[in-house]
């Protein structure tokens, strides 16, 4: 598990991977700032960090075009950043401030940035699957070349809408890539113990959808698998399914001590950090340590600055509670 990705140096696109490494650092720095912010009482609601899972976000979303659509989960900071959302707007959203991606109305679990095709995290496990499928349905009706990517966890595959959505995507041959980010856990439960059969991929196959499984902590592997799947989807071959095996290094939420996991298992996965692994690969490709260190430092520094700015941002006006409810009918009718 701690082996390098075994690269063939000659066709190793190090510039691209350096960029994706930067993205992974940015994601991690975002979540570290968010966790620190929560300890300080700046982040108000629950947050679900994806530390340790950054290669999935970077490897998948790094292959999408801005015009492509992507739907995420409660554990969606990484996907959102990787899709191109602005870190400051996201941090402001977590802090519940003006200028947040959703104007402070959504918070971490409902981050969305339609401007970059990020159609929303979701507080209901699996609920994004039919919605993503419908977005792809609309794209197909419109004759668009855009595609949709729908990311969800291993726990979501036990919800009915998972099957309904995948079946639908197959029946209508829709341009959608389903990505199961399998971190082995559903909150405090080991997902395998609640999952009959061989799991996510087998279910997708039974619904007629071609699947790939990949080491989700190996950025280069995720990148390659995602690119292949995305190319197929964009070529009109209908839905694809990709399972990325990974692990979350934190608890389910930032305040969950996660005592239900054996220390040794956590340690093993710590040795399998996707950022460290990509750094090893880049060093093998001849990138200097100094450059790698600087990349990390600069992303961390930028994020610290974002957090500083976010905390100094004003609160949204209370009156915003009454806007964007609906066009017809007056939401103030029973206001105080």
């Amino acid at each position, binding site marked *: 598990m701690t082996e390098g990705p075994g690269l063939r140096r000659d066709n190793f696109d190090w510039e691209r991977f350096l960029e994706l490494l930067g993205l992974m650092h940015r994601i991690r720095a975002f979540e570290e700032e968010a966790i620190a912010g929560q300890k300080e009482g700046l982040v108000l609601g629950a947050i679900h960090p994806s530390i340790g899972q950054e290669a999935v976000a970077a490897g998948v979303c790094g292959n999408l075009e801005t015009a492509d659509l992507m739907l995420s989960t409660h554990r969606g900071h990484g996907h959102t950043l990787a899709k191109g959302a602005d870190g400051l707007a996201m941090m402001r959203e977590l802090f519940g401030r003006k200028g947040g991606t959703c104007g402070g109305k959504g918070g971490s679990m409902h981050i969305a940035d339609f401007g970059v095709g990020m159609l929303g995290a979701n507080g209901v496990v699996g609920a994004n699957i039919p*919605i993503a499928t419908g977005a792809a349905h609309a794209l197909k009706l419109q004759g668009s070349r855009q595609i949709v990517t729908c990311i969800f966890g291993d726990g979501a595959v036990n919800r009915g809408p998972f099957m309904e959505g995948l079946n639908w995507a197959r029946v209508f041959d829709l341009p959608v890539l389903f990505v199961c980010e399998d971190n082995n856990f559903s909150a405090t439960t080991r997902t395998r113990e609640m999952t009959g059969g061989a799991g996510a991929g087998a279910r997708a196959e039974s619904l007629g959808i071609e699947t790939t499984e990949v080491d989700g902590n190996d950025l280069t592997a995720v990148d390659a698998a995602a690119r292949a799947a995305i190319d197929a989807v964009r070529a009109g071959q209908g839905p694809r399914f990709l399972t990325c095996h990974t692990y979350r290094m934190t608890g389910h939420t930032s305040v969950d001590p996660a005592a239900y996991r054996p220390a040794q298992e956590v340690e093993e996965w710590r040795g399998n950090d996707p950022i460290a692994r990509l750094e090893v690969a880049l060093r093998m490709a001849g990138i200097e340590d100094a450059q790698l260190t600087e990349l990390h430092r600069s992303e961390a520094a930028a994020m610290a600055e974002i957090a500083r700015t976010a905390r100094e941002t004003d609160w949204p006006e209370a009156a915003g509670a009454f806007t964007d409810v609906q066009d017809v*009918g007056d939401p103030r009718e029973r206001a105080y």
Partner: protein
Amino acid sequence: MTMSTYLEAGRRAVIEEMERDASVWALGEDLGRGGVFGQYKGLQEMFGTGRIADTPISEACIMGAAVGAAMTGTRPIVEMRFSDFALCAVDELVNQAAKARFMFGGQMRVPLVVREPVGMWRSSAAQHSQSLESWYTHIPGLVVVAPSTPADNLGLLKAAIRCDDPVVYMEHKNLWGLEGELPEGDHMVPLGKADIAREGRDVTLVTWSGMRQGCLKAAETLASDGIEAEVIDLRTLWPWDRDAVMASVEKTGRLLVVHEAVTVSGFGAEIAASVAEALHFRLKAPVSRLGAPRIPVAYAPTMEDEARVSPARIVAAVRKTMQPAEVS
């Protein structure tokens, strides 16, 4: 003016809006063969399988997919077949469709219409007879419409399809065959405006959907006793036409809300409470409500009728309201 059924009026609304706006499409089970009541008859031939889409029996995904498709520039008409089956898709409607625009800070809208045929219909029993409109009026973000005449089914369905909010559109199964005149041209009925179905000075009956007919019948009976009932068909339940109701009750001093749904926590409670709050000192009699008892709908007609609001029961309830005021 042409004569048409309530069913055919809904079909015409869909055709007109689909012709007008290429982003409108419909999805649901068996639509290719016209839908379970024939509301979509011939439409797949007219608009193709893309825009009149047959779906798997997957209510959650029908609703959820419509949410995604609505966010992505189309205007889906979601056919739920029976409102009872929409209970398989409540997360998708209530947690997703209704909240998305707000939750995401107004970045987009979710313009969809959910058609949910409601109500009692000859021995359909407990799982095919429900009227749960009050649920949807309770959910921020949703518009709720319940037409009761062919012309309104034409004009309101067209308005619902053009509305940028998610609209729960409840047609009554027992009205499919009802005939009435349809205006020519682009007939629109504004959302949120009630229809004064009958004018009267003595008592205000507020109603909607399948009960409009019953109220009008009851009003005829009462008229022969000299009681002139004003019948207000709300047509849209959220937002409901407060002005029309309040103006009428100010005039008559008496209110009876009549609906087919269970009385307890039915939408009649909202109207009765609102009127009592606003017009307490103008009322000549207590506000009153008439709906079904809190029982599931039974199959056998003897028992089924215990859950049915008949014109006779409306007449009796009005008479009670007209009794001389208790001395306080």
